[in-house]
């Protein structure tokens, strides 16, 4: 059948480049491999194989860039005949999010990963010199594996190798009747659109940085394999240090950008939740940093080579493993990211790739294990290498604990088969991880503070003791002051506080006094300083993170601060805000002022205007005032789930973080009723209660004395009022009211209503029924407007800026080290 209105050329081109990139990578890997094999026997042939390898890789890079261009063209031109464009983009999507569409899907993010490998590979090709053939053979081989992910080849009806981003919509949904008409394109006018929670500038910048971090683990991996392959363990050291520094900086930035994204625009209620997806990116970083440290030990002392190689190889393998965890859907019900897996095909595909890489690594290690240079003598206890080694092992063990717990869904079938127990993820992940990782933080914090004071091989104990004595004392004073001021009472976290303070003081002291602030040498102390600040920032912001909605100050679920008794108290951290009514929220008065609709489109986002003000308790002067605009979104696909984005007000020493949890009324509520009727209530005796929404009223009795400005006395009137006191939910009296009943000229009944604004309550004295001289029943009509309301959660994160600053300082430290390493390289050339 001939279909009308399709644009098939970009897809055909794209598919052509997919195949080309795969074949070119395969050719490049093979040529580089041949270049290595003929290195000794036939240098001339080796040279030509090298040139083949290079040109193969360059063709591969050009193809990958072309795939990128073709796919971007499809998304940008809204060619919805392609499944990828239809699934991930829509016409109304602003231009800046088109890139985000690109990597929202599985295929696009594999593309991004491939792309970064290409760029890094080009740099390695130009700089690796004697190791080029071997490193590039590995890089090209990994590229071959990655290319299979987007090949989209079918073998028989059931086996599919990869998923191409250029597949047509009509091929994905073959059975849909719409595709039987040749002009089906007339009906497909718009795409599915980008997931709203991803419509965010973080979605544009976070994935490229994170994927650059993931991709750069390949380079230390390739260099370690090259060293093993060659059986020569000197030339790989410098480039591997440089690449590991780059990798640590970029991956570290990527991870914390994820944290910042979660904090700024997702409603996880924080920047870190020990979510499997977060863990999966943290683990390779921890292992990489451990490997970087043992590599430095190896460079200076010749020790710890085997551990270094294992760690750096593992770091890249763990990136593949984390891809496996987060993309196959195996975590399914354990992650809030709730990735929908691409099912069985990707599951086995990734297993095969991981299996190939693991076999390669194991075979090389076993082959070379006995030949790895080792030093027979023992290191001194007071040496830098000894403690760096211990620190690295602890980082590694920490990463293993995280991996084991994150991988529960992976190993639970096996555990069930053995023990019969059906293991589930920890019910309180925060507690589960924090309880163990706090010790890792303490030990690595203290080590990162003190290890620089020791020298490689041999150090002078007295000098170290003096310097560490001074700095730890200052650190202790600082910790006590902060612990006191911030009420940090759990002893583990007090030790962690000391460890972080000690780290800050010791590294500043080391940088200024010992290193005399010579910029080129400052890398390690700056990075360690940043690390200590990160620890301090995490501790301060999380330990005292508290909800101010519903006035619970200092209550915290995270660090098991609650006693068993406190745990019994079911408390709420969400506050109900009626439109236009000010409610207390911590030190603030918060008012839901109004809401406004975003740009007209089929996906409306509603911004809620929340006004916060803080007054001086005595003078009632306004000390602080600001607006926050959390938003909420109801999908046009008839999905009733509310998608919300938080809004945060930043102060130098704390953040006020809010998001909307439940809404009623306003633009988004279709069930809203505007017709409100009065409800009848009968009271007989003083003390009787009338229930109202948000509280109750107590009847105080009838009164002939009426003093209301709204009532002008007329002689013939029989006038009587019913006195009530209105209480709120918390038994707090709000107001006394007295609706009035008037019998004029013995015929005409008039009412003067009374009201309570805060509850949208109107009360009318409807009728009086005298049964006997002592028994009078009073009919009271109560009307309460169904006001719009939102349920808002507001959290305060104290000193969270210390965390962000710490990350920046740490990354800076990595780059200073990298810069001085590269400039030394230039100088020695």
């Amino acid at each position, binding site marked *: 059948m001939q279909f009308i209105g399709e644009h098939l050329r970009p897809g055909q081109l794209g598919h052509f480049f997919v195949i080309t990139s795969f074949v070119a990578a395969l050719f490049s890997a093979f040529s580089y491999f041949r270049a290595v094999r003929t290195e000794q026997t036939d240098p001339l042939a080796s040279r030509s194989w090298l040139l083949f390898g290079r040109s193969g890789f360059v063709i591969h890079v050009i193809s990958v860039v072309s795939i990128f261009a073709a796919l971007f063209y499809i998304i940008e031109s809204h060619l919805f005949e392609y499944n990828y464009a239809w699934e991930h983009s829509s016409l109304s999507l602003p231009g800046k999010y088109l890139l985000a569409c690109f990597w929202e899907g599985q295929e696009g993010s594999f593309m991004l990963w491939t792309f970064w490998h290409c760029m890094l590979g080009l740099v390695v090709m130009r700089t690796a010199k004697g190791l080029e053939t071997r490193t590039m053979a590995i890089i090209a081989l990994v590229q071959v594996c990655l290319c299979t992910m987007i090949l989209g080849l079918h073998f028989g009806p059931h086996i599919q190798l990869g998923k191409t981003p250029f597949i047509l919509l009509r091929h994905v949904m073959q059975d849909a009747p719409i595709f039987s008409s040749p002009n089906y394109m007339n009906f497909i006018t718009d795409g*599915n659109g980008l997931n709203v929670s991803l419509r965010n500038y973080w979605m544009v910048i976070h994935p490229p940085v994170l994927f650059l971090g993931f991709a750069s683990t390949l380079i230390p991996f390739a260099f370690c394999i090259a060293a093993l392959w060659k059986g020569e363990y000197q030339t790989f050291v410098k480039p591997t240090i440089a690449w590991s520094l780059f990798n640590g900086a970029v991956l570290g930035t990527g991870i914390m950008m994820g944290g910042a994204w979660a904090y700024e625009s997702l409603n996880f209620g924080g920047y870190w939740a020990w979510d499997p997806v977060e863990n999966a990116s943290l683990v390779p970083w921890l292992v990489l940093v451990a490997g970087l440290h043992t590599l430095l030990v190896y460079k200076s002392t010749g020790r710890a080579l085997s551990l270094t190689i294992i760690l750096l190889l593992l770091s890249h393998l763990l990136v593949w493993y984390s891809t496996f965890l987060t993309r196959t859907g195996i975590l*399914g*019900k354990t992650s*809030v990211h*709730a990735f*929908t897996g691409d099912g069985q095909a990707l599951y086995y595909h990734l297993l095969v790739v991981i299996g190939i890489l693991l076999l390669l690594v194991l075979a090389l290690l076993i082959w070379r294990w006995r030949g790895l240079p080792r030093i027979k003598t*023992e*290191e001194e*206890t007071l040496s830098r290498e*000894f403690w760096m*080694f*211990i620190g690295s*092992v*602890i980082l590694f*063990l920490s990463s*293993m*604990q995280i991996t*084991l*717990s994150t991988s*529960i869904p992976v190993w639970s079938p096996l555990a069930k088969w053995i023990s019969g*127990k*059906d*293991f*589930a*993820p*920890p*019910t*309180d992940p925060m507690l*589960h991880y924090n309880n*163990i990782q706090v010790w890792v933080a303490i030990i690595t914090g203290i080590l990162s503070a003190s290890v620089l004071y020791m020298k490689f091989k041999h150090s002078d104990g007295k000098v170290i003791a003096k310097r560490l004595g001074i700095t730890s004392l200052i650190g202790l004073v600082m910790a006590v002051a902060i612990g006191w001021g911030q009420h940090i009472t759990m002893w583990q976290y007090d030790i962690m506080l000391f460890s972080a303070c000690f780290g800050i003081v010791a590294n500043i002291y080391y940088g200024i006094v010992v290193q005399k602030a010579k910029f080129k040498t400052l890398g390690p102390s700056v990075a360690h300083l940043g690390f200590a600040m990160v620890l301090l920032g995490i501790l301060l912001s999380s330990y005292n993170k508290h909800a101010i909605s519903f006035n619970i100050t200092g209550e915290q*679920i995270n660090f098991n601060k*609650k006693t068993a008794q406190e*745990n*019994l108290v*079911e*408390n*709420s*951290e*969400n506050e*109900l805000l009626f439109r236009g009514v000010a409610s207390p929220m911590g030190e603030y008065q918060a008012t839901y002022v109004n809401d406004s609709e975003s740009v007209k489109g089929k996906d409306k986002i509603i911004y809620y205007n929340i006004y916060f003000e803080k007054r001086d308790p005595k003078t009632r002067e306004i000390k602080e005032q600001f607006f926050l605009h959390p938003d909420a979104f109801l999908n046009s*696909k008839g*999905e*009733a*789930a*509310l998608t919300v984005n938080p809004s945060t007000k930043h102060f130098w020493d704390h953040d006020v973080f809010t998001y909307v*949890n*439940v809404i*009623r009324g306003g633009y988004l509520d279709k069930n809203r009723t505007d017709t409100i009727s009065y409800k009848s209530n009968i009271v007989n005796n003083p003390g009787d209660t009338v229930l109202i*929404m*948000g509280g109750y009223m107590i009847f105080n009795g009838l009164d002939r004395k009426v003093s209301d400005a709204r009532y002008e006395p007329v002689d013939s009137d029989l006038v009587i009022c019913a006195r009530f006191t209105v209480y709120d*939910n918390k038994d707090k009296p709000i107001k006394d009211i007295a609706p009035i009943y008037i019998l004029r000229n013995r015929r005409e009944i008039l009412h003067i209503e009374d009201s309570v604004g805060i509850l949208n309550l109107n009360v009318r004295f409807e009728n009086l029924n005298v049964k006997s001289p002592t028994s009078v029943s009073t009919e009271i009509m109560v009307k309460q407007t169904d006001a719009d309301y939102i*349920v808002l959660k507001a959290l305060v994160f104290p000193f969270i800026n210390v965390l962000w600053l710490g990350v920046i300082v740490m990354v800076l430290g990595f780059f200073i080290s990298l810069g001085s390493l590269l400039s030394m390289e230039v100088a020695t050339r």
Partner: protein
Amino acid sequence: MKKTHIVLLVLIVTAIAVLVSEFGNFSTYETFASASKQAGKKIYVIGFLQKDKPMEYDPQKDKDHFIFYATDKAGNMNKVIFNGEKPRDIEKSEQIVMMGYEDAGTFHCSRIQMKCPSKYKKDMVVEGKSS
């Protein structure tokens, strides 16, 4: 034996001890019946919303209190108190994973994960308050 080896050994033994103790801490998937045998311990129950039973939720009174009935995979029905807001669209859920503990015939739940029938809709997790 080298000092490094001794330290390494100590660290690894500690790590193994921590991991083994962790195994006791890991939660498990249970049924209402097996949950009642370990009352108070936080576990997961996979089940289905009992749609013909009434649901109680009044946000004006307490917005973090939602009562419903659920059937577990073994077919036993149990009353569930969720101390959080009523999850939107729970009526449409195919399956729910409830995290909490059993106490005196009632399941106190602090997290619900709903599996939704539509393939265009991602599963939803709803957090309650800690209790």
